[in-house]
């Protein structure tokens, strides 16, 4: 199975390392031909506006969108979650996303960098112990559609619980950045469970 990491901007190296520790040999993808040949895609943390801008500039935006719609297994952390959301709040004018998850996310929802934090979160599918999650200018999920499974939530500063890890079919997304902590359970879950849904490419 060929797993690509979208290598336009962001913490690509950390996702590479996490995937390698899961026994996968990932490849960096940013050109159309590279994106056409992968069986799964990871979208790293970074600046969602920059990644979307570069994807559009280099003519891979529509291709990635089409492949996700056709069932390409995909995992996005932080900026990657924003890019996989069907709807975004506090976006910049004209900001597009690949979509794939029937969710609304709010960008920079937890606040600015001084509000960035670490916290223990529990994800039933990953077992114990709790996962130490790092949230950096992170988005949260404002609402989810009927087909979306919420894997984890946190109590946010607005007093409500917000989903921070979600899955719908072959799409997985987290608000936080597991690639920064050395805890690879999310990546393992993606490879072992989500990528099962991969459809053979022609």
């Amino acid at each position, binding site marked *: 199975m060929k797993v690509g990491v979208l*290598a*336009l*901007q*962001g*913490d*690509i*190296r*950390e996702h590479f390392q996490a995937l390698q520790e899961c026994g996968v040999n990932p490849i960096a993808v*940013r050109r159309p031909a590279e994106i056409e040949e992968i069986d799964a895609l990871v979208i790293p*943390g*970074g*600046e969602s*506006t*920059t990644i979307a*801008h*570069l994807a559009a*500039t*280099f003519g891979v935006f529509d291709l990635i969108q089409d492949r996700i719609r056709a069932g390409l297994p995909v995992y996005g952390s*932080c*900026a990657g979650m924003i890019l996989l959301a069907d709807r975004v709040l*506090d*976006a*910049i004018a004209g900001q597009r996303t690949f979509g794939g998850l029937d969710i609304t996310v709010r*960008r*920079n929802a937890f*606040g*600015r*960098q*001084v*509000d*960035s*934090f*670490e*916290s*223990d*979160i529990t994800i039933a599918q990953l077992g114990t112990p709790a996962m130490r999650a*790092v*949230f*950096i*200018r992170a988005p949260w999920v404002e609402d989810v559609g009927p087909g979306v499974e919420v894997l984890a939530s*946190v*109590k946010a500063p607005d007093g409500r619980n917000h989903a921070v890890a979600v899955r719908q079919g072959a799409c997985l997304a987290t608000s936080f*950045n597991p690639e*920064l*902590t050395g805890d690879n359970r999310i990546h393992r879950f993606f490879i072992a469970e989500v990528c099962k849904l991969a459809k053979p490419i022609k």
Partner: protein
Amino acid sequence: MSETTGTGRVKRGMAEMLKGGVIMDVVNAEQAKIAEDAGAVAVMALERVPADIRAQGGVARMSDPDMIEKIKAAVSIPVMAKARIGHFVEAQILQSLGVDYIDESEVLTPADYENHIDKWNFTVPFVCGATNLGEALRRINEGAAMIRSKGEAGTGDISQAVVHMRKIGGEIRRLTSMREDELYVAAKEMQAPFELVKEVAQAGKLPVVMFSAGGIATPSDAALMMHLGADGVFIGSGIFKSGDPARRAAACVKATTFFDDPKVIADASRGLGDAMVGISVADIPAPHRLAERGW
């Protein structure tokens, strides 16, 4: 559930998210918008770009809080701002304004000619300049969560950025080839803490993200610094002192991502209008070189 802000991981992790990107100097909300639309990963809010600080002289200080607020309101990407070296009150003000990163910068007139800010005391992360590995490790020891090679700001002359990146990279490579018992002397010579020297020797890289700065004026300059090992670039005067800032900004973003593809950089370099005029570092007398500030 224990929530903690301002941890090393949160501060250093923020810089990881900026990798492969371009951070642009802006002096007002309109420029910040242009930078965001061009694909900048962050903006650096300051009152005068380095080229103007150099031309106009005088004491250069932290920006007006009103100006920083306006830029924060104008864009959704991270906003950084500069404090004078050692001026921890300016840094406290910037933290209270909610900037996302503080640059303790030699581009401003230093406030303290011996001590840098104790950056561990802050929740907001800091980036600091360095011309060599020892300087980088001293800043990290003081709590810097990101390093930028200094270059010579406000010149449009890439030569010093190259010197500093090659120097830091070369010193890291040298450490990796040393026996462990030789690292004590290396630490002494570099005037850096042994533990950090050992960490770099083992990892073959700095424990934090390193960008390059100071003199980047063209897409090819940005790509050159990426080849030399930068995780990303700061562009100060090079964009808004050029003929067509929006196009040049977008071109530099492209060249930073596709730094190893000369065709993309060639296309990005077409029709950008005039680059900043610039000034050769060789023509700047040593006491006026900003890179020599910091200790």
